C-alpha cells in the first residue's frame, strides 16, 4: 500500500466512525431540550441563558426553512420528532398540523395572561406565542411628493389613480402573500375576492415570488430603490426601518394601511414522542414568560401575546396594532387554502 492510499484510508475510516458515533445518543435522562423552529426564530443570548439557568436544561435550536417547510417536516416525522417543542406553526397552517396529530396537549399556567382571542385550539395542543399582522405598507415620501392621497383601504387599490403602484407576493410561494390573499377573502368573501383580484390585475399590480424581492428590491420605501410605493409587508416593518437605519431617522419612512391587515398568530406545542417531555413543557412556559415575550418584538418583529409584556419604545412609537384585523378560522383556511391559491394563480398569473 502506498503512502497515498494509506492517507486516504486514514481519512475515510475515522469519518465513517464519526457518523456512527454521533448517531449513537445515550438513553439516559436528557439534559437538553430541543426546539425545532423556522429560520426566522431568534432568541437573545441572555434570554436563552436565563432559560437554561432556571430550567436546568440546555436549549438546542434546530432551524428548518420557513413555516411551511417546518410543518411539512414535522408531519414527516410525526411520532418520532427531531425535537421536543415545535415553534412557528401559524393559523394558516394550524389545521394541517393538528390533523397530522403532531402535538401532545399541554395547558400552560401562563395562558391566563393571554387574550382569549389568540387561543385557537380548545384542546391546548398548541399555545399561542406571538402575533403579527400582514398589512399594506406605503412609502410616505412618494405620496407626499406627488400630493397623491395614499391608499386607505383594499378598495383603493383598484382605483385607476393607483395604477401600477402595488407589489404583492405570490401566495403560492410566500407567507405574507398567502396572508394577503386570505385578507381579501376575509374582506370580500366568495366570489367577491376573485373579482377584486381581476380588477387588481387590470390595475397592473406586480406579483413577485418572495417578500425579499418585494420589499428589498421593488418597494420604494425601504433599502432598495424600487419604483413601487405600495407593498404587502408587516405592521412591524415601519419600526424596523427606524431601528435598522444609521443614523436613526425621526420618523418611519413608511406607514401601514390599517384596514388591510390580516392577523397571523404563531403557536408552539409539545411534540408527540418528545424525548424530553418535562423540558418541553418548561420551554413552552418560558416562551410565554414575560422575559421571552419582551424579547420578541426586536428579535422577530412580531408582537407578544402576553399582556404583561411591555413593548420597546420604537415599537410603541412607530408600530401599528390594528384593533380589528381581518381573520379567518383555521378550519376554514385548512379546508380551502389550496383551492384558493389555485384559483388565484389562474386569475392573476395565467
Amino acid at each position, binding site marked *: *500500500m502506498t503512502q497515498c492510499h494509506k492517507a486516504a484510508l486514514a481519512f475515510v475510516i475515522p469519518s465513517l466512525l464519526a*457518523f456512527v458515533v454521533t448517531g449513537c445518543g445515550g438513553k439516559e435522562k436528557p439534559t437538553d431540550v430541543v426546539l425545532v423552529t423556522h429560520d*426566522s426564530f431568534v432568541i437573545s443570548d441572555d434570554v436563552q441563558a436565563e432559560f437554561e439557568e432556571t430550567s436546568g436544561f440546555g436549549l438546542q*435550536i434546530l432551524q428548518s*426553512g420557513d413555516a411551511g417547510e417546518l410543518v411539512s417536516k414535522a408531519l414527516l416525522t410525526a411520532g418520532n420528532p427531531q425535537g421536543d417543542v415545535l415553534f412557528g406553526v401559524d393559523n394558516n397552517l394550524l389545521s394541517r398540523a393538528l390533523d397530522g396529530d403532531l402535538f401532545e396537549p399541554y395547558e400552560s399556567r401562563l395562558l391566563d395572561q393571554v387574550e382569549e382571542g389568540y387561543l385557537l385550539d380548545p384542546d391546548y395542543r398548541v399555545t399561542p406565542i406571538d402575533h403579527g399582522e400582514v398589512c399594506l405598507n406605503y412609502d410616505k415620501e412618494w405620496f407626499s411628493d406627488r400630493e397623491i392621497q395614499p391608499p386607505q383601504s383594499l378598495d383603493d387599490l383598484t382605483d385607476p389613480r393607483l395604477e401600477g403602484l402595488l407589489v404583492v407576493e405570490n401566495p403560492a410561494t410566500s407567507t405574507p402573500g398567502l396572508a394577503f390573499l386570505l385578507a381579501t377573502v376575509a374582506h370580500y368573501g366568495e366570489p367577491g375576492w376573485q373579482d377584486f383580484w381581476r380588477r387588481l390585475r387590470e390595475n397592473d399590480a406586480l406579483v413577485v415570488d418572495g417578500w*425579499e424581492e418585494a420589499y428589498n*428590491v421593488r418597494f420604494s420605501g425601504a433599502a432598495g430603490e424600487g419604483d413601487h410605493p405600495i407593498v404587502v409587508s408587516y405592521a412591524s416593518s415601519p419600526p424596523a426601518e427606524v431601528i435598522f437605519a444609521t443614523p436613526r431617522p425621526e420618523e418611519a419612512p413608511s406607514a401601514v394601511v390599517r384596514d388591510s391587515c390580516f392577523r397571523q398568530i404563531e403557536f408552539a406545542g409539545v411534540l408527540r414522542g418528545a424525548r424530553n417531555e418535562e423540558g418541553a413543557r418548561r420551554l413552552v412556559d418560558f416562551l410565554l414568560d414575560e422575559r421571552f415575550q419582551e424579547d420578541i418584538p426586536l428579535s422577530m*418583529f412580531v408582537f407578544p401575546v402576553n399582556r404583561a409584556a411591555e413593548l420597546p419604545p420604537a415599537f410603541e412609537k412607530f408600530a401599528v396594532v390594528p384593533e380589528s384585523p381581518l381573520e379567518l378560522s383555521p378550519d376554514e383556511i385548512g379546508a380551502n387554502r389550496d383551492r384558493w391559491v389555485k384559483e388565484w394563480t389562474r386569475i392573476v398569473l395565467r
Partner: protein
Amino acid sequence: MSARVWRALTYGVPIAFLALFFAYPLASILERGLGSGEDLASSLDVLTDQLTRDVVWFTLWQAVVSTALTIAVGLPASYVLGRYTFRGRSVALAAVTVPFVLPTVVVALAFLAVLPEGLERGWAAILIAHVFFNVAVVVRVVGTFWAGLDPRVSEAAATLGAGPVRSLREVTLPLLAPALAAAASIVFLFSFTSFGIVLILGGPRYSTLETEIYNQAVRIFDLRAAAILALVQLVFVALAIWAATRLEQRLAAGGQRRQERDVLRPFRTRTEKAIATGSLGLLALLVGVPLAVLIERSLAVGNGYSLEAYRTLGRSTDALLATPWEAVVNSLVYAAVAAAIAAVVGGLAAFAVAGSRHGGTRLLDGLLMIPLGASAVMLGFGFVIAFDTAPIDFRSSPWIVPVVQALVAIPFVVRIVVPTLRAIDDRQREAAAVLGASPGRVRREIDLPVAGRALGVAAGFAFAISLGEFGATVFLARPDSPTLPVAIFRFLSRPGELNAGQAYALAVILMAVVAVSVFSIERIRALRTGWS
C-alpha cells in the same frame, strides 16, 4: 496493494457512499410519497395535467438553450486559459469561479438590479443568469483539459497548411470533445434542476420541475404528486447522463497528455493578444458587472457609502444565532471537510471509471452524476425520514451538512480527474509493466502524478462548491451553526437597511474567500508542477 483490493476500494467506497447518503434517503421519501394517498389513478392526474406538461417543456428547453449559450461563452475563454500563460492568469481563473458558488438568491437580486427594464424577468433573465453561474464549469473543465493537450498536434496541422479554423474544427475540437461533453452535461443538469434562479428571475409565471416539486412537497404537502414529479425529473436526468456518458466514451480520443508547463506559452503575436483580450473581456463583462453591483450594494448606506455593514459583522445579530463571522468560520470548516470527502470518494471513483471501459464503470460514472440532477427538496426530506433511528439518527448532526455538500461536489471531482486519467497513453503503462513495474507502482508513478494535478484542481473546486452550496443544505434541519449562504439568506429575509447591507457584505466576503482559495490552489498547483 493488490489489484483486487484496489478495485474493491475504487468501486466499493463510492458505491457505498452513494447508496447510504443518496439512494437510501431518496428511495425512502419516494416510497413514502407513492405509498400515501388513496388511489394511484387520481395521483397520476398530475402527469396528464396541462400545467405539468408546460412545466416539463419549459424545464427542458431552457436547460438546453442555457447549456448551448454557456458553452458558446465559455469556449473562447477556455482556449485562452488552456493555451497561454500571462500575468493575471490565475486571477482570471479564480474570478470566473466566483459566480458558480454564490448563493442563487444573492445573484438573482443582483441581476434584478443590473438587467434593463423589461429584460429583468422571464426566460431571457433565466438564461443570462444560468450562463453567469455555469460558465465556470466550462472554463474549468474544458480549460484544464485543454492545458494538457499537446500543442504540437495542431502545430503539425498548421504546418500541413490547415488554417486556424480548420485546425480548430478538425484537430482541437475532436480532442476536446470528452471534456466538452462532460462540461455540457453538468451545465445541463444544473440548468435543468435550477431552483432559486427560476423562482426569482423567472417570476411567478415560469416554473421548472424543481420549483413545482417544492410547491407540491412543501407548500401543499402532497407527497405523492411531489414523488411522481421527482421521478419524472429523475428519468430525464438519467437519460441526459446516459447520453452524455455514451458521448464521452465515444469521443474519448487518445492524444498525448502533456504537463501544463510544457503547453502554456506567452502570446506571440498581436492577433493572439487581441483574441485573448476580447474573449476574456466578454467574460469579464458578464461576470464582473453583477459582482460589482453586489460590492456597491454592500457599501451603500443611506445616501452615501461606508463600511458600516462590514464593521457590524462581528457583533451578534438578531438575524442569526451566531455572529456573522462565526458563519464564515463554519462555512470554511464544512467546506474543508466536504472537499476532503469529495476528493477521497470522487478520486477513488475516478480511478474506477478511468480504469476500464466496460458497462459497469459507465454505470458507476453515470450514477455518481445523478445527485446533481436529483431534487434537493426530496433529498432533504429523505434525510429526515431515512436516518431517524439509532444507531444512525444523525438527522440533526453537524456531519450531515458536509456529507450533502460532498454529494454535489463528487461528480465534479470525477469529471475533472477522469478525462486526464483516460488520456494517459496506455503505452506508457505498458512500457512500465514491461520494465517490471508492479500494477501498484504503475499507478503510483504514472497515474498518480498526472491525476494528482487534476485532483488538486478538483478538490479546490469541491471546496468552492461546498462554500456556496445552498440548495441541499437549506432543506436540512441545521444545528445553530449557519453557513455563509444561509446567513446571507437570513439577513435578506429581514427588513431594515442594515440587514440588507450585511447580506451583501457577507456575499462579498464569500466571493473573496472563494477567489482567494481558488487562487491559492492555482498557485500551489503551479509550484508543485514546477513552474520555477
